C-alpha cells in the first residue's frame, strides 16, 4: 500500500484501511465521535490520496470544456465547479471539482479509485482532440486536507491567520504556497487546502494542536451519506449516466463535450434515490429493497446515520417508484420498513 505525505503525523494513532491501494485512516477515535465533531465543531481529513491534475496551456479551457460535462471555460479565476467526465456512451468515468487558477491554468481534483483510468483518459482525449495541454500530477510532492465543521473557519484563522469568511463558497484563494478553497464533501462550512507536502503537513499539525478532531474515511463516508452525495466507484460507474443521478444541472449543452451525443438519445429508466429506515439499523450497499411484490432494487451504499439514528442508503430505483413510497429492506433474513426519499437526509 501507498501512504500519503501526511502519514507520519498519524501513523500510530489511527486504525487503517486499504483504500484502492492507499493505506488510509478509517478512524482515529471512533467514526461516531469524528462524525459529530464535524457536525458540531471541526474535523480535519487527510485527502491527499485524491487525484489532482494541473491542466495548463492556451487550450486548457477548451480542452476541459470538451472533457467535462460542465463548462470550465466560463469560470472566473478563483472559482470552482463540480463536474462529470463522461465516455462516448454518456457513462460517468469520474466526477470531480475543477478550479480555475488562471487564464491558462486549472486544477482538476478527482477520485482516488479512478486514478489509472483518468490518467489514461485525460491524455488520450488531449491527443485525440488535438489539444496541446500540459497535464501535471505532483504525486507525493503535494498533499491535501479538508477542514470541515461550523467552527472550521475560525480555527483556520487561529491556526494560520487566513480569514476565509469573505471568500465565497466554491471560490479559492492562494495563501503563501497553499491553495485554499471554500468547499467540501460533508455539507458543513469548511475549506480544502492543497499545496506542497511540508506546508500542508504544518497546517495539519497546527490544526490538530488547536484541538481539531482528526477524522478518517469512516466518518467521511457517513458525513457524505447524510448529505446524499454519491461516491464514485460505489454509487456510480461507467454504466451510469448523469440523468440517472439527477445531475443534468451540471451539464452544459451549449458546448461540445464527450458523451453529449449519447446523452441526447438517453432517457433514464432508473434514478438514484435515498432510503431511510424506521428503525435503528445499519444499511449497506448490496442490501435488497422490496418496493412492491415484483419491483426490487439494490442499495449501492448505506450506513447508520449518527445524527438521525436511522439507517440511510442510496440506490437506483425504477422511475416508477415515487419519492415517499414505503418499502422494505431485507437484512440477514429480516425485513425492516423504510421510506424512499430525495436526499439530503439532514437539512443544511
Amino acid at each position, binding site marked *: 500500500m501507498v501512504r500519503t505525505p501526511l502519514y507520519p503525523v498519524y501513523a500510530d494513532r489511527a486504525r487503517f484501511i486499504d483504500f484502492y491501494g492507499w493505506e488510509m485512516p*478509517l478512524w482515529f477515535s*471512533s467514526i*461516531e465521535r469524528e462524525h459529530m465533531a464535524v457536525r458540531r465543531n471541526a474535523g480535519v481529513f487527510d485527502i491527499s490520496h485524491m487525484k489532482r491534475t494541473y491542466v495548463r496551456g492556451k487550450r486548457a479551457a477548451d480542452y476541459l470544456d470538451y472533457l467535462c460535462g460542465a463548462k470550465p471555460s466560463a469560470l472566473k479565476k478563483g472559482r470552482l465547479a463540480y463536474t462529470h467526465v463522461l465516455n462516448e456512451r454518456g457513462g460517468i468515468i469520474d466526477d470531480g471539482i475543477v478550479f480555475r487558477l488562471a487564464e491558462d491554468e486549472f486544477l482538476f481534483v478527482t477520485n482516488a479509485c479512478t486514478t489509472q483510468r483518468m490518467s489514461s483518459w485525460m491524455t488520450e482525449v488531449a491527443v485525440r482532440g488535438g489539444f496541446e495541454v500540459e497535464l501535471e500530477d505532483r504525486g507525493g510532492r503535494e498533499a491535501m486536507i479538508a477542514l470541515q465543521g461550523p467552527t472550521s473557519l475560525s480555527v483556520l484563522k487561529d491556526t494560520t491567520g487566513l480569514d476565509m469568511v469573505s471568500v465565497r463558497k466554491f471560490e479559492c484563494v492562494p495563501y503563501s504556497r497553499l491553495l485554499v478553497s471554500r468547499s467540501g464533501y460533508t455539507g458543513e462550512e469548511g475549506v480544502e487546502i492543497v499545496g506542497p507536502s511540508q506546508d500542508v503537513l504544518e497546517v495539519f499539525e497546527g490544526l490538530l494542536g488547536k484541538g481539531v478532531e482528526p477524522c478518517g474515511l469512516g466518518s467521511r463516508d457517513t458525513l457524505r451519506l447524510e448529505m446524499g452525495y454519491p461516491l464514485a466507484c460505489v454509487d456510480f460507474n461507467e454504466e451510469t449516466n448523469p440523468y440517472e443521478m439527477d445531475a443534468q444541472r451540471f451539464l452544459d449543452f451549449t458546448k461540445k463535450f464527450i458523451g453529449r451525443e449519447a446523452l441526447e438519445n438517453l432517457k433514464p429508466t432508473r434514478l438514484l434515490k435515498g432510503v431511510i429506515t424506521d428503525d*435503528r*439499523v*445499519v444499511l449497506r450497499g448490496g442490501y435488497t429493497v422490496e418496493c412492491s411484490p415484483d419491483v426490487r432494487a439494490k442499495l449501492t451504499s448505506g450506513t*447508520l446515520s449518527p445524527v438521525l439514528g436511522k439507517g440511510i442508503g442510496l440506490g437506483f430505483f425504477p422511475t416508477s417508484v415515487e419519492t415517499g413510497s414505503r418499502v422494505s429492506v431485507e437484512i*440477514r433474513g429480516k425485513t425492516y420498513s423504510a421510506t424512499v426519499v430525495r436526499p439530503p437526509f439532514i437539512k443544511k
Partner: protein
Amino acid sequence: MSAIPEGILYSKEHEWVRVEHGVCTVGITDYAQSKLGDVVVVDLPKVGARLEYMKPACSIESFKAVSDVYSPLSGTVVEVNPEVSKDPGVVNRDPYGKGWLFKLKPERLEEEVKLLLKPEEYRRLIEGLSDA
C-alpha cells in the same frame, strides 16, 4: 495494548466468560471491540434460547461490519443485558463490565471450561494477530 483481565476465561473468537455460582456471564473482549469500532446495533439472544459451544449466539454490528458472537459454553440463556440495547456504545466503553451481553446456565461446564483460554493464553493469541 488490549485489556485482558484475570479471573475470566477467553475464547479463540474473542469472547470472555465469567463463571459465578452456576451462572456464566459472556461478553466480547477489549481486542474485539477495538477492531469493530463503534458498536451501533446489538442483536441479543432470547432468554430461554439454547446455545452451543462455539456456535453463533448473537451478532454485533458496527459501522464497519456485522460480527457473530460465539457462545463460549453450551447452555441456556437466563438473562440479557438491557443496557446494551439502549446504549450499544457501552460494549466499546466497558467490554468486561457494564458491556456484558448475556448470562447463561451452563450444561457441560467442567468439560468445556478446559477448552477455553486462560488470560495468558489469550494474550499470546492476540499478540500473534495484527495490531489491536
